[in-house]
């Protein structure tokens, strides 16, 4: 597997602009070519969409919560209320250049179907998700004997919306199973910084707090 070189500062983003955007959003935005058309699935309050639009990208969003949708629309963003599991089916093939799923995969009922739909609707998909193989998670389960909780995933097991956690290794395996081509993969540490690129997969799986993958259809 070949993975493109990842350097800081991120290409195309001036350092001065990076202050108020989340590290993973900057990385996602940098993966998207300017002038392209993007669907952000589970767009929350629209922060990533605003970043994309500021870069001349035609961004659209789907968000489950009414409050989130209304906050996005109040910012002038093209966002509709909808569910990744049930509403992606309404979009035609090749409607977008990129479909982004940021920190939402683990909350879907059918992650595999969602992923397949993303790559049907878009030429490329970008997925970021919390890595359940992160050492802090492992340690909590191994030593603490309880379901892991972190600053980014503070919910208890009984009220979490996250029903399909996976590790970076699991996700890579799913991509192989459904013949998805990995164009680029990045693991971010606890502070949203990319991990050393030449590190082996087990290192990423242990020390990556989240994984970010740029995917395309196999055979393209």
């Amino acid at each position, binding site marked *: 597997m070949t993975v493109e070189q990842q350097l800081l500062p991120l290409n195309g983003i001036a350092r001065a602009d990076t202050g108020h955007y989340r590290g993973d959003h900057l990385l996602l935005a940098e993966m998207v070519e300017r002038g392209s058309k993007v669907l952000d699935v589970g767009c929350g309050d629209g922060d990533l969409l605003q970043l994309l639009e500021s870069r001349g990208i035609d961004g659209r969003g789907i968000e489950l919560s*009414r409050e989130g949708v*209304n906050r996005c*629309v109040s*910012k*002038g963003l*093209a*966002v509709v*209320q909808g569910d990744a599991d049930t*509403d992606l089916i309404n979009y035609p093939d090749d409607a977008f250049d990129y479909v982004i799923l940021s920190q939402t995969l683990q909350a879907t009922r059918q992650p595999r179907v969602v992923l397949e739909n993303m790559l049907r609707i878009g030429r490329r998909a970008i997925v970021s998700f919390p890595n359940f193989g992160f050492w802090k998670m492992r340690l909590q389960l191994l030593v603490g004997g309880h379901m892991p909780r972190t600053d980014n995933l503070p919910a208890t097991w009984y009220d979490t919306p996250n029903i399909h956690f996976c590790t970076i290794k699991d996700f890579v395996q799913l991509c192989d199973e459904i013949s998805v081509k990995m164009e680029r993969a990045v693991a971010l540490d606890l502070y949203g910084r990319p991990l050393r690129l030449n590190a082996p997969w087990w290192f990423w799986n242990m020390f990556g707090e989240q994984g970010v993958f740029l995917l395309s259809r196999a055979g393209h």
Partner: protein
Amino acid sequence: MVQVKSIPSPAIHAEERSQEADHPTSQVALFGPDQPLALDCGIDLKPFQIAYQTYGELNADRSNAILICHALTSDQHVANVHPLTGKPGWWETMVGPGRPLDTDSYFIVCANVIGGCMGSTGPASTNPATGKPWGLDFPIITIPDMVRAQGMLLDRLGIDTLFCVVGGSMGGMQALQWTAAYPKRVFSTLAIACSTRHSAQNIAFHELGRQAVMADPDWHSGRYFEKGTHPHRGLGVARMAAHITYLSDAALHRKFGRRMQDRELPTFSFDADFQVESYLRYQGSSFVERFDANSYLYLTRAMDYFDIAADHNGVLAQAFRGVPTRFCVVSFTSDWLFPTPESRALVHALNASSARVSFAEIETDRGHDAFLLDVPEFFDISRAFLQSAGTARGLGKRA
């Protein structure tokens, strides 16, 4: 015998209403016999006129025009005192300096729909062939007919492309029809509390209203002008029934509950003991003062016939295929006349057409009428949508 009171005769008389129908207190665009309005029913309506109001100023490159499409029983008097009732305009919360539809930035046009009774040609207007009101000789009109007439008005005003077409309820139907029929003339569309087709339940409510009008002996098969009457009882009942559909159970309960009207005990009669009865009677009687009964028949019929998908092989997405227009669709949680699933179906079709669409459902207990009321979240969303569209259109705020 148990005492019965019905809806009182209107204080505003037929002469005043018919004056407004032919010679309105608005600007009027006259279209002569050489410029007929080709109606869907196959008839060319000629001559005809459109009464309209404007607010704000058209900019030099004519790019800041917003068309407001009014709902079933409103009219072109959006943000000025109504000439018949003396009440403020029906959307003054939304339209004016600094309001979401900002008259400092946009040139706003609202025209009375064809078939209406406030100055655009309709059944209350004088039929030039007979010198008498059209009555039921007026041809059946449709939502696309209304839009076609508005298009002719905009041609007359020299407006090629609308910055935005805005409407709620029947106005939203027109806004969607505008976009489907003339996508290149519409830069953005704000469709509120509406649907791409009138539901069976809504057709049923309209039929109830029409039958109430027709059952009134004062209707005289639509020739009440000649008999010197007006079917105010039938039209009042129609309005009362319709008004219930504009509200919600929760809103009625909050406003009135089971409270009594100026009394503590039931009168054991059919008098309006309950506040909600008194309120509905007031709604009925104030409506008949300003509205023509035949016009009510025609406009409800136009809504019944509305079905955009039917004009596109039954596939809604085809109606909006390749449409460059930016959409904002808004629904209200307690609206059971045009419930959220209707808006969601529209949004799915727009997504399937790859249109740029925002869709917000607003939480309120005020029912369908919420779009006419002071709902801050709705205003914020409308304002932001227009500002974002304005940026894309290159509109700057006027100095």
